[in-house]
């Protein structure tokens, strides 16, 4: 663990990743203390100070009803991260288990499971999430469900390929010969050898979940007002370009910085742990 941390901080690119991710996560956790106007995350109106360009104390300016943009962006990070964690916590175990079973069992089990996976993978991710989201009511919880439904197949695909090659290894044969149960072989022998790839992908995906969630809410199919959300902020501000540029630029950069950080970190982890692309 110490070694991994040392390797992460020794290369300038991965160090940047660690710094960006730390900033995003810490600011989301301590949002109540670092934002100047914590009450602005909700439905508050201050018409004496609306649509102002960046100035002190509103360093990113104020939105159309006078709320501090910086505050809202930090709270939006909090929502995005929660969403990302929940999506991965639900979808990774599902995807990984299906991939392991399909890869190890082979035969009809494999054919049926992988065909179902193919079906999910052949709808463009955003379109699938959009339809699920639209058919339910747009909300944070349904957003998590919609993204989860589109996310597990990628882990199935990844783990399936890994399992297929691991199954050829001597240790699997050895376990079979001594009569280990299928359950034992799948979850105690093969799974530990897939962890590196899975963790790498999770680090990368945390960024991409944020990206997809922002895309959904940009289209009005995500988190609903007054909950702060980066995607809906960009969508709203887009109507007031170019005059109110700060309404768009700061939330847009906030998305870019967070996802860029997770990508750098994921990339670095891939090199250190030797996960697959």
């Amino acid at each position: 663990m110490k070694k991994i941390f040392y390797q992460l901080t020794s290369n300038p690119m991965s160090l940047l990743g660690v710094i960006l991710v730390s900033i995003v996560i810490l600011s989301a956790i301590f949002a109540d203390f670092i934002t100047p106007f914590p009450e602005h995350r909700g439905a508050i109106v201050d018409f004496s100070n609306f649509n102002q360009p960046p100035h002190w104390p509103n360093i990113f300016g104020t939105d159309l009803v006078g709320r501090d943009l910086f505050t809202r962006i930090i709270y939006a990070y909090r929502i995005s991260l929660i969403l990302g964690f929940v999506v991965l916590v639900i979808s990774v175990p599902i995807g990984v288990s299906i991939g392991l079973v399909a890869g190890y069992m082979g035969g009809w089990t494999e054919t049926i499971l992988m065909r179902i996976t193919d079906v999910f993978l052949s709808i463009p991710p955003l379109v699938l999430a959009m339809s699920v989201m639209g058919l339910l009511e747009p909300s944070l919880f349904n957003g998590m469900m919609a993204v989860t439904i589109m996310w597990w197949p990628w882990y199935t695909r990844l783990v399936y390929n890994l399992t297929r090659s691991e199954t050829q290894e001597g240790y699997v044969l050895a376990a079979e010969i001594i009569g280990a149960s299928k359950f034992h072989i799948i979850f105690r022998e093969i799974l530990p050898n897939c962890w590196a790839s899975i963790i790498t992908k999770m680090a990368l995906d945390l960024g991409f979940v944020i990206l997809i969630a922002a895309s959904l809410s940009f289209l009005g199919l995500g988190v609903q007002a007054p909950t702060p959300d980066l995607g809906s902020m960009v969508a709203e501000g887009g109507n007031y370009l170019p005059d109110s540029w700060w309404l768009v630029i700061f939330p847009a950069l906030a998305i870019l910085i967070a996802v860029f950080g997770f990508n750098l970190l994921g990339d670095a982890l891939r090199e250190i742990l030797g996960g697959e692309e």
Partner: protein
Amino acid sequence: MNSVVKMLLKRIGTSLVVLIGVSMLIFTIARVIPGDPARIALGPNASIEQIDKLRERLHLNDNIITQYGYFIKDLSNGNLGISLYTNRPVTTDIAQFLPATLELVIFAGFFMVAFGIPLGIIAAKYKDKWQDHSVRILALLTVSAPSFVWAVILMLLFAFFLPLFPVAGRIDDQLLLPDNITGFLTVDALIDGNFTVFVNAIWHILLPAFALSLSGIGQAARLTRANMVETYKKPYIEMAQAFGFSAKRIATKYAFKPSLIPSLTIIGLDFAAMLGNAFLVEAVFAWPGLSRYGVQVILRKDLNAIVGTVLVISAMFLVVNIIVDLLITYINPRIRLAKGQ
């Protein structure tokens, strides 16, 4: 040739199976959701009788398997039902809005290949030099933001601050549209021989297509670089170097083609992602494509239209993948020349 035909038939077969799966999936999702689509379609003032009538007409009172049967029967006649939002056949709606989206995606796909692959080659050639690092950072940055972020940034920079490109739409309002033959404005203008419209349409499409292609460019560059670097480690490249072939000849004749094959698969996947991301870019540039229609029908729970739109987009995706497979077969003689499997 025989093996290629066989492969093609096999791919079309599996794609059809997947497409049927997609139809079942989206149909099930559309039918199990809470809320009565007939009530939503007719609005809050509709009488119970009107709603019952519409439910009857949409077969909403039957069980889901029977409903799916009706759906497949209609589908085999090329009928996706009536959109409750526009009150027209869903196929008519899609035929109207899809070409604009496809035109955008095809331009973006062209940018992805035209910029991504050369950038990857440059990075591989100057491995671990500043060119390589810049391409790597660029590639990571481009995939780190959804395409609507790039769209608003490009719009702000190149349409507002530097007014080089138009802000919205496919064409200037005062220009007359050419006859609608293919639905692709650039192609229709050329068929019409109307050069002004052609240039104007290209001028309008450049910025949105570039915004849409950015993350694809990054992906393509990254993969091309990685594959080129791998290929350069192969013994036959070493042999070519030992023979004293020029670096240029090795790069173009021996290293490029094998490196292209893995990239092509991903480019196919990215193309599919662009069909989805087009929704975001279209929303920013007020592009009259499938996006506005798609979002509207989703917000109105217009079941037929949602199912139709998703099916058509998935079919496009499968077609793209078959084309990519064919290209790979064409490039890779080991597959092309193998006896049919």
